């Protein structure tokens, strides 16, 4: 599958909160604008009457650390619906810890919904308020299922290409074409592949679009292929948990190529943007804050995520080691980071317009309205621009090749 199993270890980040962690993150009080900054009052926490009584948020995959912000909003005293694969709990304002008077329901995606996209699900189940998917998927779906992003808890695209460093000595993704190595991809004619082919960094003949996310082909060929994956999962899983491989792999963030959608563009329908404007004005800053809180202390939510994956029994299972690795990697690879301006979780419209332009010219998108631009699919009007995440390294070699040992 696209993403799956995962695992445990405690707390480098928890230590970081106390100023002793290996990541060197600052304590919550280090900046008046970060993490637990005393922003809203108890009254400001209330979402009752302005949001649906249960705020339903549709994920694009099974529970994993990348969805930390959404589970951070949920109290630990919720109920798990193992059969229908969702978690319902009182929605807690992460800035104050106060109850908001509504519930949050986080719905698992991917295999839990027959791999139907969150964009589509917003239209088949109107009780879902928010969905989460990558911006390129959002653009592709716009002609049939238009959505508007209201916050992006992740800054950099978390997809990677990875390979066997003992076999290939790539210095960058642009070296792929010369190697003529098979590239495993989720579908042959993806926007990303079209972009890379236009750049001549890969050739159409290299692409094997039948990849389903499992390690089988990579391992069976002795690492003789290049594979798509996620910075937060495959590097750790292959190097430490996949007994049939158990060796280092190298990877590079696809964002380095210039193809850089928001991985977790969190959106709603255009009608809801108006209808629930008062709700989003309070809820969106809570999502921003929740992501910041999760990165400062991911253990509670990672434990919840592991518990949910155990209960849901889909995918390969998740564990604390993978969850902890993912939470660290999100910071070390600058996947979770502050944008140059606009506040944590905001969209950079120029970046989205670049993506639209790139997709229109390399992927022949059809059905988009005339003068389609970032303002049609993203809005920053609910973002609290004062919120920022505090992290002072260390960082991986995010501009180039990273090897997980």
């Amino acid at each position, binding site marked *: 599958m696209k993403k799956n199993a995962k695992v445990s270890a405690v707390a480098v980040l928890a230590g970081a909160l106390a100023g002793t962690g290996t990541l060197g993150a600052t304590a919550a009080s280090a900046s008046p604008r970060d993490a637990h900054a005393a922003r809203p009052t108890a009254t400001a926490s209330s979402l009752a009457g302005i949001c649906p009584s249960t705020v339903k948020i549709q994920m694009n995959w099974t529970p994993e650390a990348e969805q930390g912000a959404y589970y951070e909003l949920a109290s630990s005293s919720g109920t798990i619906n193992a059969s229908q694969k969702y978690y319902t709990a009182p929605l807690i304002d992460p800035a104050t810890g106060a109850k908001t008077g509504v519930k949050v329901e986080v719905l698992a995606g991917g295999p839990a919904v*027959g791999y139907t996209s969150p964009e589509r699900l917003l239209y088949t189940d109107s009780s879902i308020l928010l969905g989460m998917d990558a911006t390129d998927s959002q653009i592709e779906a716009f002609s049939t299922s238009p959505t508007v992003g209201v916050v992006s808890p992740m800054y950099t695209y978390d997809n990677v290409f990875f390979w066997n460093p003992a076999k290939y000595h790539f210095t960058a993704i642009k070296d792929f074409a010369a190697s003529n190595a098979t590239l495993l991809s989720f579908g042959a004619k993806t926007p990303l592949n079209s972009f890379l082919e236009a750049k001549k960094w890969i050739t159409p003949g290299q692409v094997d679009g039948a990849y389903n996310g499992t390690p089988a082909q990579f391992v069976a060929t002795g690492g003789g292929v290049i594979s798509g994956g996620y910075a937060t999962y495959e590097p750790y899983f292959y190097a430490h948990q996949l007994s049939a491989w158990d060796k280092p792999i190298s990877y590079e963030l696809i964002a380095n190529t210039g193809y850089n959608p928001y991985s977790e563009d969190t959106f709603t329908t255009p009608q809801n943007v108006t209808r629930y404007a008062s709700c989003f004005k309070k809820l969106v800053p809570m999502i921003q804050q929740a992501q910041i809180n999760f990165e400062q202390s991911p253990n509670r939510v990672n434990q919840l995520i592991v518990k949910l994956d155990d209960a849901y029994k889909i995918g390969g299972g998740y564990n604390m080691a993978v969850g902890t690795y993912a939470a660290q990697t999100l910071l070390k690879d600058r996947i979770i980071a502050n944008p140059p301006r606009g506040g944590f979780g905001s969209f950079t419209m120029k970046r989205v317009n670049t993506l639209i332009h790139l997709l229109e010219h390399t992927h022949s998108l059809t059905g988009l309205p005339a003068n389609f631009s970032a303002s049609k699919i993203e809005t920053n009007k609910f973002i609290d621009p004062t919120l920022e995440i505090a992290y002072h390294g260390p960082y991986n070699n995010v501009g180039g090749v990273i090897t997980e040992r």
Partner: protein
Amino acid sequence: MSLSPYAFDEETTIDPEQAQRDDVAGRTPTRGGRVAMRVLPPLLLLVVAAGLWELVSYVFLDPSRRFLLPPLQQVLQQSFLVGANLSSLAGAFGVTAELALVGLVIAMALGISIAIFMRQSLFIERGLYPYLVLLQTVPILALVPLIGFWLGFSTTARIVVCILIALFPIIANTTLGLNATTTAQLDLFRLHRAGRGRVLRKLLLPAALPAMFTGFRISAGLSVVGEIVGGFFFQRGPTDLGILINSYVDVLNGPLLFGAIIFSALLGVIVFWAFTALAKVACGAWKE
């Protein structure tokens, strides 16, 4: 001895080919000998296959690639002797069996009804049949997203996949069976002024039973396949063998993947046997 085809039971069934071979050899096999002749060939084949399996796994496959065909003893040990694994597999086996059976029963009811309906007039048969063929030819995977949108991603969707995949053989075989009666038999009933209902109950359906059971047996296996395929896509609801297979593939757990495949095959064999036995009870041994 009665000449009625219904008069034979399994104890008195004579395999003419075997009898001829026995005659040629000038011997009369004992009952034990007959059983041995039935059991030994598949058993010997199983031993040879197991030997080849171990050979490929241990000799031809590098340890790093052994997940492609994990050693048989490892598969059996992990799947049947580790309590937690056996419990998962047995639970999923039960879910798959239950949903496949529900789908099959609905497909049987629908299939028989449609076939009887078509038997009522050539006009209806000619009207319906092309669409039934169309249903059979549409790849089920192409319908999966639609089924999900319409019915959600849980057990209902999985049952619908079972029905869709199992329906056609039941309709086709029941239709074949209903049309198997001779004109003379029908004339006899007409001569006795039997109504449509009576002709159906007393002539058409009994005559169609052997063909219907052939359809049930084919569809029973297909229903199991449909449930497992449904589990790949509709993973809400209880964990079935399809969901387990998916999760084992995700982490390259070869032994348990093969364990799940063994359980799937076991279920297919059980339903095949069950319908063979039912056919014997319903139609007598002559058909078999």
